């Protein structure tokens, strides 16, 4: 099948992330496997600087974020040609602990075709190049979380 006819979903939304719906929308008749990553707001962080989080506030440069999500999907398809459907969703706004904030899902006919690796690659790339930021609000104050990745030309 041509990549253009394969389902690819990008979304930046203030609504709840519905895993059932998203997986269904990237399932074809030939699909037998889906690997899905979701990230949630951690209320308690132990690694690094131990701290509590009251909530996170997400914002995005929406039109560019949508284009970069498309780029992440294109990169996934270029690397794993068995991938059938891709969904990339970022929830923005004020999000409380235990709430899913992001989803990457990839489907394929079989599980040994790169679906797991593709989902992992997708979340890693989203955190590198998709223009979204989060501000952490905790009992001790608020601060912007900053990533570390510096995009290169062509990214």
């Amino acid at each position, binding site marked *: 099948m041509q990549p253009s006819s394969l389902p690819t979903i990008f979304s930046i939304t203030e609504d709840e992330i519905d895993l059932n719906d998203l997986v269904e929308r990237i399932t074809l008749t030939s699909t037998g496997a889906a690997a899905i990553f979701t*990230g949630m707001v951690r209320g308690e962080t132990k690694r690094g600087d131990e701290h509590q989080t009251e909530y996170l506030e*997400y*914002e*995005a*440069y929406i*039109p*560019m*974020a949508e*284009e*970069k999500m498309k780029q992440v999907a294109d990169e996934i398809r270029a690397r794993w040609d068995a991938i059938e459907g891709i969904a990339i969703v*970022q929830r923005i706004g004020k999000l409380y602990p235990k709430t899913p*904030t*992001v989803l990457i899902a990839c489907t394929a006919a079989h599980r040994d075709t790169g679906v797991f690796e593709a989902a992992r690659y997708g*979340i890693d790339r*989203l*955190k*590198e*190049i*998709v*223009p*979204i*930021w*989060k*501000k952490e609000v905790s009992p001790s104050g608020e601060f*912007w*979380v*900053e*990533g*570390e*990745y*510096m*995009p*290169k*030309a062509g*990214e």
Partner: protein
Amino acid sequence: MNHVKLLFFATIRDRMGTKSLDLELPADLTIHGLKDRLSEEYPKVKESMKSVLVTVNREYAFDEAVIPLNAEIGMFPPVSGG
């Protein structure tokens, strides 16, 4: 002159005190030149300009690039979505 729209996000927006700015720039100004100009006019972002990410028409852009006509320019810290 080149009329451009600047969009600021996260820490850069906080320090600029605004989400966006319309500017008239010399026709051959580079990203580097734009950063210098903002550093002068907005001292609060001077430090941020060293590590800021810059986009031109929603693609990452770098110091030497000349800013195209009527560009939409984004300025923000390294991303932290997910």
